[in-house]
């Protein structure tokens, strides 16, 4: 939809809504830069002195506990599961959109239905499986779980992206006797790439912020950043600046990745959005 000129009230409304919705994040960043005593004053001191004390605490200035292992664990869990999701969802979506399976919507429903297991109730059986297979506190188990967590939505999104690939190009590839891998790489990928990138970013964000599985299934070795964060939220009040600093650092990778890739994200998601 093209807009020839922006209507003034829309602009005002956008500024108002944008500021309102960004406020919690701004407040979090501001608090992270205050000292603990300023962060807990009444009224909230917006003009208080800025300090990096909270960040120093987060990086273990006094406790000596480094946040890097959990951050790296989060990175491996998010990136590893995103790669696996792509490897599994592209062929599945290809089968559902390009080589149409009869009753494909039932297959999609099956994929989606696995998302309906409430994590809280499902965590005990999953814990028992992990215990039984010796995979407790193992980052690979988390990678597999995040893969299955994101797979349904990835297949669903990807199916509509792949439907954008012209049928004639696929037929030509088939006549030339191209294998699945060649077809995917040479014909499908160029068209569907923005969609694949958008799906990856979405899966990355969901894995990066996942807490419940990580909390129950990991310990000292494989603990992720959100688990590390909850260890900061021990008591209220004087630790607020530290908690906000931790949350800001943990949010930063997603924020930076998302903001720099927002055009790609939109371009990708708009593939196959309208049929």
């Amino acid at each position, binding site marked *: *939809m093209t807009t020839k000129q922006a209507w003034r009230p829309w*602009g005002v409304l*956008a*500024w108002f*809504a*944008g*500021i*309102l919705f*960004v*406020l*919690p*994040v701004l407040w979090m960043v501001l608090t992270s830069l205050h000292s603990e005593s300023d962060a807990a004053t009444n*009224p*909230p001191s917006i003009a208080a002195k800025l300090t990096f004390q909270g960040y120093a605490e987060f990086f273990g200035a006094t406790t000596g506990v480094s946040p890097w292992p959990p951050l790296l664990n989060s990175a491996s869990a998010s990136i590893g599961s995103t790669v696996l999701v792509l490897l*599994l*969802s592209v062929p*599945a979506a290809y*089968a*559902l959109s390009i080589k149409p*399976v*009869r009753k494909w*919507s039932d*297959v999609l*429903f099956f994929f*989606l239905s*696995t998302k*309906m*297991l*409430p994590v*809280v*109730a*499902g965590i*005990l*059986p*999953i814990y028992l*499986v992990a215990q039984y297979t010796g995979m407790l506190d193992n980052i690979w188990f988390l990678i597999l*779980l995040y893969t*299955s967590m994101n797979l349904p*939505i990835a297949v669903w999104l990807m199916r509509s992206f792949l439907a954008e690939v012209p049928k004639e190009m696929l037929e030509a590839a088939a006549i030339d006797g191209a294998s*699945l891998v060649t077809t995917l790489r040479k014909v499908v990928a160029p068209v569907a790439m923005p969609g694949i990138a958008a799906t990856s970013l*979405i899966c990355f*964000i969901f894995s990066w*912020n996942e807490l*419940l599985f990580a909390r129950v299934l990991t310990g000292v070795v494989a603990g992720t950043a959100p688990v590390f*964060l909850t260890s900061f939220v021990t008591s209220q009040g004087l630790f*607020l600046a530290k*908690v*906000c600093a931790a949350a800001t650092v*943990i949010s*930063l990778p*997603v*924020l930076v990745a998302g*903001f720099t890739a927002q055009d790609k*994200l*939109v*371009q990708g*998601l*708009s593939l196959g*959005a*309208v049929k």
Partner: protein
Amino acid sequence: MIGISRDGRAALAYLAPAALVLIGLLGYPIYQLVLISFYDYGQEQVSGGAPLNWLGLGNYAKLLSDSQFWTVLAQTVGFAACCVLGTLLVGAALAVLATRVRAVPRALLFLAALGAWATPTVAGSTVWLFLFDANFGLVNEVLGLQGFSWTYDRWVAFGLVAAQVVWCSFPFVMVTLYAGIKAIPGEVVEAAALDGASVPRTVRSVILPLLRPLLVVVTIQSVIWDFKVFTQIYVMTGGGGVAGGNLVLNVYAYQQAFAASEYGLGSAIGVVMTVLLLGFTAIYLRALRRSGEAL
């Protein structure tokens, strides 16, 4: 079964890996969940110190005859419905807004969306709790409501948590719908305008039908998320509110399973939730299919 043509067999082969991973990692736990819900399964059974005691449908009977369960179920459905509606309305409104403004306010809207999306739920809930703190909070300061507690009254607390849930989940809806609106060819909208269609009419008859596949995805996603809200209620109402007034099913299941070590009962709640979600989605998809296009 699916056709046995060469294509059909190939398609099956492409679907199999994804399906196997899902069955292995989620199907098996669901099976275990159902199994555990038939037993008296407590701490001793988890550690293997006591034999299993088969209850059959005992846990379900106990659950269905408990008036608290029905209260919590009604609360969960109402709460989830409000959250889904709020998320869709806010997400759609901001998506439309983003298509209508210049680059700078649009960047601000995207920054707000990505900020909300990037903030870990625990941190987001904690920050909101402090923003709305009775004595120290910025919100009470601005509104002149010092001393007013947002988490004491049951409905006010539900409202606050719902607002937080909407704030957490509007970004996915906004970004997806924004992309969808961008993908609508300009000529379609212009043609409608040339035919003299009003703006609401254009939205209803041209834009909404085109966006339908996307709306279905975001609606189902939101329903699944909001029916299973856990972190926000747990953090913001201190584990279920004053006298459990803010319990939703997921937190209730957690209380039964982990706090009370009644894993069998907790599993039964989980099974009930899964069945309700499955039923809702199946009916919704069927209704959509009956009313026209596939999905």
